[in-house]
């Protein structure tokens, strides 16, 4: 499942940031779920975002991918040497720019087969023109074959090669998570956002996941990862950002973050200072 190259074009590997989030603030009525969040990710790196439940991690992903529009702040993204702004773009534009994501509670196309799920992602990069598919010309046929090949390679890459024809809904939980990753990789991203990919995974699956993330990062794709398991995080990420109540309360190397008193407090809490939910 590892070692193989990720099929498809390889993102730029020049050094520098891939993502620069500045002062992103998101409110829902009276509830502030992101409060001036800033972070920076180097190209090709794995950055982890951790934080207690409701800290705003998923909200941050939603702001980056265009699902939510933050009230303030910017998020610059460098697919190549020129940076673009992510805030204010619709989700499909963001995806086409090269930011792919998975969802915390899996969102596949349940009645499509595994390979078709990936195909949807891969075909986003296909030549435009809705009418093109109508005539089975040689070029179209070749394109279709190439797409399929790539889909199967991606499925192999995440270890689902033998499940290609199954409907997504019939896959096991862990398989569905990996299929989501394959679908996201299908869009040839330069930045991959993973929202709790290890949730509900067994110990063996976790180990596999670590290898998979390494393999993805090894091909130059930057990974922004939400994860609760600090050991898994330490195994894949060089840097960690800790969110709590929508604020960045710590950032740095895993060992630094683990020792940070603010982090300890956020996770364990001081009984009299604990705030209630919204």
């Amino acid at each position, binding site marked *: 499942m590892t070692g193989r190259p990720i099929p498809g074009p390889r993102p730029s590997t020049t050094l520098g940031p891939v993502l620069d989030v500045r002062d992103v603030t998101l409110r829902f009525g009276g509830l502030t779920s992101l409060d001036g969040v800033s972070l920076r990710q180097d190209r090709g790196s794995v950055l982890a975002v951790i934080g207690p439940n409701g800290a705003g991690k998923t909200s941050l992903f939603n702001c980056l*991918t265009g*699902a939510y529009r933050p009230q303030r702040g910017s998020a610059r993204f460098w697919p190549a040497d020129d940076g673009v702004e992510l805030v204010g773009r*619709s*989700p499909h534009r963001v995806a086409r720019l090269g930011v792919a994501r998975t969802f915390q509670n899996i*969102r596949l196309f*349940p009645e499509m087969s595994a390979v078709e799920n990936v195909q949807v992602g891969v075909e986003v990069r296909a030549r435009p023109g809705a009418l093109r598919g109508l005539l089975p010309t040689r070029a179209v046929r070749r394109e279709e074959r190439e797409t399929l090949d790539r889909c199967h390679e991606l499925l192999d890459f995440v270890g689902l090669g033998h499940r290609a024809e199954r*409907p997504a809904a019939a896959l096991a939980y862990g398989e569905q998570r990996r299929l989501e990753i394959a679908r996201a990789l299908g869009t040839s991203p330069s930045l991959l956002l993973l929202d709790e990919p290890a949730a*509900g995974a067994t110990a063996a699956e976790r180990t596999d996941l670590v290898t998979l993330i390494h393999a993805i990062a090894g091909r130059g794709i930057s990974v922004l990862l939400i994860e609760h398991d600090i050991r898994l995080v330490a195994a894949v990420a060089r840097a960690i950002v800790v969110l709590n109540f929508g604020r960045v309360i710590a950032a740095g190397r895993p060992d630094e973050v683990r020792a940070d008193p603010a982090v300890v407090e956020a*996770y364990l809490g001081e009984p009299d200072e604990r705030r209630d939910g919204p």
Partner: protein
Amino acid sequence: MKLRRPAPRRSPAVRSHSVRARKAQSRRAQLRELRSRMARPGAARPGGVPWPVVARSPAARRLGACLFLAVIAAVVTGPSGDADRPLAGIEGSFTPARAAGFAAGGLALWALSIGADRLTTRLRSAGHGAALGGGRLAALGGGAWVTPAGAAWASFRRGRWAAFRRGRWSAPAGNLALLAVAVAVPPLLSTAAQQALVSEIGIYALLALGLNVVVGYAGLLDLGYIAFFAIGAYTTAYVTSADAMPWHAPWQVNPFFALPVALVVAAVAGVVLGGPTLRLRGDYLAIVTLGFGEIVQLLANNADGVTGGPRGVFGLPPLSVDLPGVHYSWGLRPLPYYYLLVVLIVLVMVVFGRWERSRTGRAWTAIRQDEVAAEATGVATMRMKLLAFAVGASVSGFAGVVLATKQFFNPQTFGLQSSLLVLTIVIFGGMGSRLGVVLGALVLQGTAFLLRDTVPPADRYIYFGAVVILMMIFRPQGLLPPRGPRAPASPGPAAAPERPAVPTERAGAPGPAGPAASTEAAR
């Protein structure tokens, strides 16, 4: 206190991974357990007598349902009442003879359904998994079929028949056979039947194929679909005749050229309607499109100066070919129109079949199954939905051209009921299945035609309404469902993900604005 509130913060103590992951599942199981405990016969119900065990048993409930169906059927098929004696119709439905007949029918239905269940269970336990169809069929065969026969049928279905169905040549062969029947049989029919084949079956099959793109592929409920049919028909009137309408285009063209014109006009109308409204979530879209349909009909009715008003449109030139050396007019007889419709239908089916399996079709399916995920995967959902709308509309416009050149029409032709009829056909035939919806038109409208002397046309819609409800309950995939991904060893709905008992879009919890699809939270 909001309706749908963000999930409360959980304390870090419960943040164990396995717990988080399986939470939803275990919660559901708990709920089921709780429910079953509450529904257990004889369980103490606060402030009430315990229900007799018998009345709660599945067999008794099913008996109740069957008898209820029989009563409804008796009323529906019974005589009509009127304003002065509103209950006369219902009383007349239950003359002793009718009452006995329908009671017997209800009982028979009950016996059949129980018998079918028993058989199915037995077949299942005998190791013949997917024998449902066989079991049902065996039961229908009068109970004389014993288990081995049913099992044989089941294994046939699973084995050779299934292999044949999936085989490379079966589909083309079957389709060609159907086409041959469609070409060869109509000349043998009466003129009335040929007429019905054109204006009730053929045109509606074409309409259903178009709506199938919108509802079946993209999952958008369009209740104003018939408006595009009207637009096609009126466009034809404008461009082909100088005197049928109070107003007409500066030049008149051969009706064949009306086809592309109507296609374009209807597609543009589809985009114009869809542009602002496709952002809305499904049920709101349905209501807005319904209103659009109403408005178009109102306009057709009231704008006398432009549309001719309620009087309608007649006297349009029939279709004709005037090439050097070839002169042919479709004239007034139905059969030539029928063959034209067959050509159009086959053409549309072939094109859509190709489309369905192309990247466009996959994008539609993705949108239908999870719009948020599709958008996040880079599918331009808005554009694809607009495309579906425009494609559906243009097929509808096509049908409008055929209608206009064939026969008289007036605003009544384009009422809400017609929209709902097309929807009924699509539901009945199978959403997303081209052959299904064409057969749906044939079966539904054909039956209505055959029963035209027994059932007054106005009463047809009672049956159509009933068909829709029954299909949604018993066979939501329709008569001939589209072929999905093959699911080895997971027959039927077992493969479907378990959903909560109440249709709350749980995954996309609190969107700031209710009906807008795009604001559904992505988690």
